[in-house]
Structures are given as structure tokens and as C-alpha cells.
């Protein structure tokens, strides 16, 4: 007799647990969806979003502020930055003439932005970038800044 009772209790408690589970999924079925329909709408990026880097444009000069000190080049863990500056005037600091970065190897750690003494670097908010070859990921940030217009 005991065995029969236990058998029936097994059946009913099992069935009850299944029914409760189904009630949960049914409840969720009528909840608003939580996904974002990506290409149609995009998630807002946080203010501090860490994308790849770009040179910041300074309003007073209308240009970048990189002095090619090489701090970013030295700190970069992946060694993807190459920057070269020129001495334009004798008593003024250097000015960068090219600033290459290989995005495909950049790990987006953000150390370069942190160490920049001139605050010339900033994080870009652009995350939809494509290229046709691995060399198209090597970008001259100065040329890029200039091509973006004033």
C-alpha cells in the first residue's frame, strides 16, 4: 500500500512541478520583449565607452594636440601604435605628422589614452567599422581626423 501511495505521490508531485514550470513560461510569454532590434535601433553607448582611439580635435587650434612624445607607443601592450613628430619651430614642442594604429591588433585596453600627457587621445564611439583587407585596419589617425573636416 505504501508503495502505491509513494508511486502516486511521485506522479502528482512531478506533474505539479511541470505545471508550475509551464505557468512561468506562460507568464513570460506576455511580458514585453527585452531584445533590441539591432540594425533598426541601437543601444545607447555609455559615456565612457571604450572603442578604438582617435585623436581629439581641439577647438582653439582646430587640429589635434599630439606632440609625438611616444608615451602611448611605449605603453601599448600590443605594439600597434607608431607615431612620428617633426620639430616645426625651434622653441615649440614637436608636432605629430603621422599616427598609425593597427586596429586589428588593438585590444582596446585604453592605456594609451590614460598615459597621454596632452590628453590628445580619446575613445571613438564608432564600433561599426569594416575593411576589405588586414591592411585597411592600419589607419593614420591624423589623416582620418583631417578627412573628417572641421
Amino acid at each position, binding site marked *: 500500500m505504501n508503495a502505491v501511495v509513494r508511486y502516486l505521490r511521485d506522479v502528482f508531485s512531478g506533474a505539479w512541478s511541470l505545471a508550475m514550470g509551464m505557468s512561468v513560461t506562460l507568464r513570460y510569454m506576455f511580458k514585453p520583449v527585452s531584445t533590441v532590434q539591432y540594425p533598426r535601433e541601437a543601444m545607447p553607448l555609455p559615456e565612457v565607452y571604450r572603442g578604438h582611439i582617435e585623436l581629439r580635435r581641439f577647438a582653439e587650434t582646430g587640429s589635434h594636440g599630439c606632440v609625438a612624445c611616444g608615451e602611448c607607443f611605449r605603453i601599448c601592450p600590443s605594439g600597434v601604435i*607608431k607615431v612620428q613628430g617633426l620639430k616645426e619651430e625651434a622653441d615649440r614642442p614637436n608636432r605629430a605628422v603621422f599616427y*598609425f594604429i*593597427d586596429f586589428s*591588433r588593438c585590444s582596446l585596453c585604453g592605456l594609451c589614452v590614460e598615459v597621454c600627457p596632452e590628453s590628445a587621445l580619446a575613445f571613438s564611439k564608432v564600433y561599426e567599422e569594416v575593411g576589405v583587407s588586414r*591592411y585597411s585596419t*592600419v589607419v593614420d589617425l591624423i589623416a582620418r581626423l583631417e578627412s573628417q573636416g572641421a
Partner: protein
Amino acid sequence: MSFLEDITPVLAQRFGVENLTAQDRARHGYDLRLALDQERLTELVGLLKEAGCYLEYITAVDQGQVLELLYFFGRYDQPPFRLQVKVAMPKGVAVPSLAGIIRAADWQEREVFDMFGQRFAGHPDLRRILLSEDADFHPLLKDFKPGPEHGGEVVNLERK
């Protein structure tokens, strides 16, 4: 009475008080360092296993001619206890395997073999574990220089 106070005299008596160094836990993260001859390794580990220790990890440091093998033992206990066993010997000398005593040593020893080429005598299955089976180098030895065949080339930024 903590386990550390219990085990210290035992270790000092059996393995020589001159081999046992107390360490500053707050700074170095372990309590004791025991410099050991490789022959006595199995004896020590048998003792530690009896005492309820577990093998945290095995690693090695390449000091030129000498390879230091480091065994870390801990305990699921409070206050914490951590023992570093240091076996230093010339490269190429096989060390007795612990895999028969503590099972966790199996993979740890394979990793040391993989990275440093250290052989463990009596290991049941001493193969490479992280690197591919046909690798012919031991990357964490100081004389290893990564070349292009290891993916170590740096992209030429000027080429566009």
C-alpha cells in the same frame, strides 16, 4: 593550534631545519618554503597528503643552468596554510612524478613538461598538454625566442 604550528616541527625534523624558511605571509602569500632534494619529494608529498593538504599547482622557474621546480600545497582550512616546496636541479634531470600519489599532479606535471621540458619519472602519460603535439620547443625556457613560426612577427605598420 593552527596547522602551520603543527607541521613546522615535523618538517624541520624530517627534512632538515636548515631547508625550512618561514616566509612573511602578508607579503609573499605563503607561510613556509622548503628546499628539498628531488629524491625525498615522494616522501614529503605522502606526508602532506596524509596531513590533508591539496596540491595547488606545480610550476618552474628557469634560472639559467638550474631549473627550480616549485610545488605549492594548501589546505581547505582556516587559518590558511601554504607551503612552497622548492626543488632546484640542473636541467635535464628527471624528477619523480607525484601523479601516483596526488592525482591533481597529473596535469600540473604535464604542463611543466610542456612549458619547460622537465621530465617526470613514472608519470603515466607525459604528453604535451597546452601546446600542439608536434611542437619541438619549450616556450617558457629563457633561451626560447619566438619567431615567425610561432606567430611572433609584428605587423609592419608602414606597409599599406
